[in-house]
């Protein structure tokens, strides 16, 4: 009895939590006539893609998607490379000041983005990077979080592997590329998904460094759908569905990794 009740409760709770998204997706598929119907309909009676084509005509959403893919893709690859290299040094090379340097890395996690916002804007401006991809990607090409995540994973790999490789005359670079990287694939996947999701969803930084319409990322581009005299909410919802589709797909496909990335901060290292 209790279990049945809980099962039903779980479904209701799920529908309530997802209601804004389900209702938004449903409305994006309504015909103009149905959108204005009172009382509003929950489920569209006929599926209509008109809002999608209207959204694509109102704003260059395909271009925004391309910009976001370039930004998020570059940042993801960059973070994987820089974090893997740094994590390797912190795990496998003994050098004076290793602890201090590691803490210096970690200290960057405590600095809120707002503190570096204004000087970074000025740096990017003086480099002539406003409205360019480098402005969107460069500040995020390295991350202490990624370094920490990969280091924690590297530490779980048996030390004997490294010792054996050294005895066999394996160079550091070869050990990293041929042995460590394949072994650490799960950790790389976690970092990649986390990096891509968080870059894709950025709002404030792209808003500052991008003014031109064609360089907007999806998050900043959404505003263009709203800028008409009378807002067509079904058109805005169609735009939202298009720009969150990639992250929804990543989230569903990589749920395990998303969870691991988000809880990594809660793990005591």
């Amino acid at each position: 009895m209790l279990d049945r009740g809980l099962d039903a409760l779980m479904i209701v709770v799920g529908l309530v939590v997802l209601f804004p998204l389900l209702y938004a997706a449903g409305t994006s598929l309504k015909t103009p006539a149905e959108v204005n119907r009172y009382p509003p309909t929950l489920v569209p009676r006929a599926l209509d893609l008109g809002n999608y084509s209207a959204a694509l005509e109102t704003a260059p959403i395909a271009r925004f998607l391309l910009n976001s893919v370039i930004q998020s893709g570059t940042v993801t690859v960059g973070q994987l490379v820089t974090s893997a290299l740094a994590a390797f040094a912190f795990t496998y090379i003994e050098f004076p000041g290793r602890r201090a340097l590691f803490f210096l890395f970690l200290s960057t996690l405590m600095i809120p983005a707002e503190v570096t916002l204004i000087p970074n804007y000025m740096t990017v401006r003086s480099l002539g990077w406003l409205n360019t991809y480098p402005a969107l990607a460069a500040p995020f090409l390295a991350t202490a979080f990624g370094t920490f995540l990969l280091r924690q994973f590297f530490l779980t790999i048996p030390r004997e592997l490294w010792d054996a490789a050294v005895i066999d005359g394996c160079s550091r670079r070869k050990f990293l590329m041929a042995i460590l990287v394949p072994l650490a694939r799960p950790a790389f996947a976690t970092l990649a998904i986390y990096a891509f999701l968080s870059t894709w969803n950025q709002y404030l930084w792209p808003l500052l460094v991008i003014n031109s319409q064609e360089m907007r990322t999806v998050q900043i581009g959404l505003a263009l759908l709203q800028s008409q005299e009378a807002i067509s909410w079904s058109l805005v919802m169609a735009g939202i569905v298009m720009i969150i589709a990639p992250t929804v797909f990543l989230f569903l496909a990589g749920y395990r990794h998303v969870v691991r990335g988000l809880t990594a901060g809660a793990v005591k290292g």
Partner: protein
Amino acid sequence: MSEAARPSVRRSPRSAGGSGLAAALGYLIPSLAVFTVFVFYPLVKNVQLSLYETSPLGGLGLFVGAGNYAQLLGDPAFLGSLRVTFVFALYTVPAGILLGLPLAMLANRKIRGIIVFRTAYSFTIAVSIAAAALIWEWLLDPNVGVLNYLLGLVHGPKIGWLTDPRWALPAVAATTVWKDLGFNVVVLLAALQGVPDELVEAARIDGAGQWGVFRNVVVPAISPGLFFIGVVATIGVLQSFGQVNILTQGGPVGATNVIVYSIYRNAFFNFRFGLAAAQAMLLFVLVLILTGLQFSVFERFVTYQ
């Protein structure tokens, strides 16, 4: 593992690329370069900016020392935005935990297909703040929004959620709670999964009821997770910007003018970079205090496990 085999001393003949500091730097330089240009330098630069009056382009003008800080701390608008930020945190953080915990407990049931519910309850992680804010702007719309429609069904008043100074901050907070719910569920679920079944069973056998088990066994066991969420959510809320920029632009009459929005306005609309830099420093201090608290209290939790 023998020490001799490890390339620990000056030079190891077997491992190419040198040893020690020089070799390590080769691997660390990419990260260090990015941190230097985009974290450490701007941090120092921001401190400097905060001590000057600046030109509209951001050039250093007159050195004013603590002048910007003094001006801020005596400015009713800034104190107002501090107050708004605290009230905002008070609305969102406890509500986020109170809603997230029961969801995480449901998601922690051991039934078939539970992954579907876990995914559903944490789904808002996949949604950006811009998308969340736009969807809620529509839900909250006074004329076509669902909220006023539902209120109308029970003959409630028509509320201008985002234009009424009394309702704007709660409305922005509701948007934020919904957006952050997925994250809260994930972290709290991870904490709940760390509670040993035997512990709960033992308490049951000792005659503890549902509430007793929850209160005396589960809550203490997940308290590090609860605390983590509390601090992380507070730090996150202190840095809220997107939802305010989209929903209210700080209004009506400053009712939602949170710190970061106020920094944004001062720097990029009023071109008072020095003043905005000082605001950012004050925010930094707040975040540092919270982070320090997290570490010190966390340690205490960890040791007595």
